[in-house]
């Protein structure tokens, strides 16, 4: 837990209630939440301005897929956790290997995934 202390997590989620829960869980675990951002455009802009160690990304932002941001973050070496209701088959090939948490998820699972990303970093 100590390693995660003060770590910044970039959250992209257009469903407010879901974002609220993610935020609650991350804060409860000691992380600092950057976001949540609800649009692709807003999130890309923010990702370039804000500092963060890891990102949890909803795949579908009001009909827009978050793939451009994923590509950019991977380019930058930022670990990415996909939070989505889509199955692997629905994803483009290059993203199928990424860590992914299927909605609905519970808080401890989310924290464990974020921690493992950070640890692997």
């Amino acid at each position, binding site marked *: 837990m100590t390693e995660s202390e003060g770590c910044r997590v970039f959250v992209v989620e*257009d*469903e*407010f*209630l*879901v*974002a*609220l*829960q993610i935020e*609650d869980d991350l804060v409860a675990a000691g992380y600092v939440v950057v976001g949540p951002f*609800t649009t692709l455009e807003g999130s890309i802009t923010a990702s370039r301005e804000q500092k963060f160690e890891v990102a949890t990304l909803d*795949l*579908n932002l*009001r009909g827009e897929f978050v793939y451009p941001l994923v590509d950019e973050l991977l380019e930058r070496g930022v670990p990415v956790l996909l939070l*989505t*209701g*889509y*199955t692997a088959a*629905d994803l483009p090939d290059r993203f199928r290997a990424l860590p992914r948490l*299927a*909605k*609905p*998820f*519970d808080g401890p699972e989310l924290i464990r995934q974020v921690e493992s990303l950070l640890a692997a970093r």
Partner: protein
Amino acid sequence: MCSAEGLPNNLESKIGPSDSPDLRAVLDALPMAVFATDREGIITYFNQAAADLAGSEPRLGKDRWCVSWDLRRADGSILPDDECPMAQTLKEGRAITGREIVAVRPDGTMVPILSYPTPILDKSGMMTGAINLLVDISDRKGSQAILRAQTERIEVRDPVVSSSGEAQAATTIDNADLLLASQHEAERRLRAERDSRYLAAIVESSDDAIISKDLNGIVTSWNKGAERLFGYAADEVIGKPITILIPPGREDEESHILGRIRNGVRIDHYETKRQRKDGSLVDISLTVSPVRDVTGRIVGASKIARNITEQKQAEKTVQARLREQASLYRLTEKLHRAKGIEEVYDAALDAIKAALNCSRASILLFDQSDRMRFVAWSGLSEHYRHAVDGHSPWTPDAHDPDPIFVADVTGADLSDELRATIASEGIAALGFIPLITGGRLIGKFMAYYDKPHVFSETEISLALTIARQLGFSIQRIRAERARQLAEEQLRRNEANERARAAELQAIMEAVPAPIWITRTPDCRVIEGNRSAYELLHLPPGLNLSFSAPPEERPSVFQIFAAGRMLSADELPVQRAARGEEVENFEEEIRFNDGKSRHLLGNATPLRNALGEVTGAVAAFIDITERKQTEEALRESERRLKMALDAGRMGAWEWNLESGRVIWSPGLEVLHHLEPGTFAGTLADFKRDIHPADLPAVEQAIQRALATREDYHVAYRVRLLDGAIRWMEAFGRFSPPDSAAGERLAGICMDITERKEAEAQRDLLVAELSHRVKNTLATVNSIARQSFSTNPDAHDAQRSFDARIRALAQAHTRLAEARWSGVSLQSIFSDELAPYRNEDMDNISLDGPPTNLPPKHALTLGMAAHELATNAAKHGALSVKAGRVSVDWAVDPNENRLCIRWSETGGPPVSPPSRNGFGRLLLERVLASDLGGDVRLEFASQGLNCTIDVPYLRGAE
């Protein structure tokens, strides 16, 4: 001989019915033919001369003299018995003087004679019969000369006899006159003495040689005529033996003559030859009479010799002319009767030889190659004929050529070879006589002589006459032959025509195709062959013409073409009978029972030799089965096309041998090509295939080719307009033994819509999964918020349930509208429904119909739930008098939706002590999820909430 002119009158007066024996003796002795008949023409008398002339003795009382001879007229025509001069005299009772007729002897020889029939009258002048005198005029000219001379002699005969008292100069007439003289002896002697001087003068001046000799043959007198005839002067021969005149070989004659004279027998007209002084021979006619002294003793002989060389010649000539004329006559007759050309040739050869006095003859005609060929010959060797075959002095186009006569081959202008050939055949002279018919030279005839021969004018004339006759006859026979051939040909042609007609009739009957035929241009009667009647189910022979009178027309069927009933004039036979060639005419025969047959055929006019239409014939084939098959095929094709069109399919075929690819029009349409413009190769097919899919297609083709299993592949094509379409193709190989070569054929479907539907489905499934899981995440979050913010677990549970129900309600509405959106009114109406009091009219909803997209509907639905729940718990709907009004408006310029929630009549409002989930939801969720602006105003009369969210009308 006596004068023919004078005799009948004498007889009329001297020979009466009394028929005295004396007179008979006179008549018997006459050297001229005399016969008598009774009134009926039955012979009652004839003398020896008559029998001699006739060549046979008639039977007295039986023969009718004139009919016992075969008589001809002078022109050679037959003289009927009852028209002979004798019959005429008996019939008419008058004398006829010297009518010339020709008597034919039983041996066939002919004698030209003059006939002098004279009636015999009794005392009362009644005719009891007739007497006829016949004069032989065989040697007419010569004879007339002789007659003249003898007549002169007769006129001087009496005085000679009377003065000498010796035997008379000898003629047969003399005897008769002597008899008469004996009756008037005194008178005659007187006259004789008176005329003796004349006699001597006459003897001296006579043309005839008058010689006398003694019984030893010594010449005793020699007149001037003798001098002229024999060339000896009187003094040279008188006293010499007469034998100096006898030529070698005739020495016996004199002793014979003398022997007869001694016996008192006279010699009349003994024709012999004597030698002149110069040694030449001369033909003479000798009359020798005994000379008696006064006692009647024979003391010598008088001799009258007449130079008959000319007479002989004349006789020969007359004989020749007669022979020639007879031969011409025979020729004419034979030619006239000739049935065949061989008879013509034979008759002509006979006539040539007889008329031209040649021993051999031949006839040659030009053959078809204009070569002169022997067609008939007499007495020619095969060698000769072969050697001169084809030789002709004229070419076929020679115009009116003259005959050629070669009198002596040795001096003729001939080639040595020809001359040698002719000579070796023993021919010394020859004549070429052209045969001309219709002005054209057709050949020649030849006369050959064994000795040199000068052709006389007569012979040339005869030759030309024969040539004319022969030419005419050849032409006649040829024309006859040609006519026979033509007739035969005609008969053969007619027979052939009949045979052919019968053959055609048989063929027509046997042909398994229906045939209609009419033999008149008006088509009143049309007959059919067996097949036609069978087709029409009619008895053979029935009239099939619709142009026939109404009662004869066929009634069990009608003829249609292209679905329309045809009038009689429109029918093919009728059209052809008007001269038209009708081809590929298709008609349908509809029977009254509803059945029908389809026929396809031609009709053609029948024409006569002049080209005039005399009828028409039409032949058909029954194509009913074919039509049905075609119709079935068309139906099948139509169904296939329908199926293909409906399924957006096309058919294709790839001929593996030719490489040709065929697309159905439907497939071309699928590829956005004008029908018929697909170029037809595999490369053309591949060009449209999406590059990404081409390998898959090629692989599928290779696999199919390798395995001969069905071909199946789906691929995209890029069309000309850039559109991308999905295609799915199925193919199957044709049987390998197919005649058209091995083919891969199949169909191709446009599956773009299916592919899109599949993609849509996949999208929907993903979307559904996404939404469901998002919803679950939302529910999860609602649960945490509901339970974590409310210390009252029971109340928290109720709130959670209500919120989930509200969420479910919004989902239900969306589902009902197939997620196309929900009306704003129904969202608020649903949430406020539990609190509605109709009596109090506590709720009002007012605004334009506004459709909310799903996200708006769900979020606004939860907001409406929180507002309604709050109002029911703490606000206007917690009391009876409270009211809630919701109104909304859409600002089309700003594209915003503004909703105002107003509560009135409720308990006094104070701002909430803490921020509950409801407020969180209202303020943050709306802001976050919808980008909206929410203002809560806790006015004293009740809560006011204004929600202002972006709203793009129609964006849903």
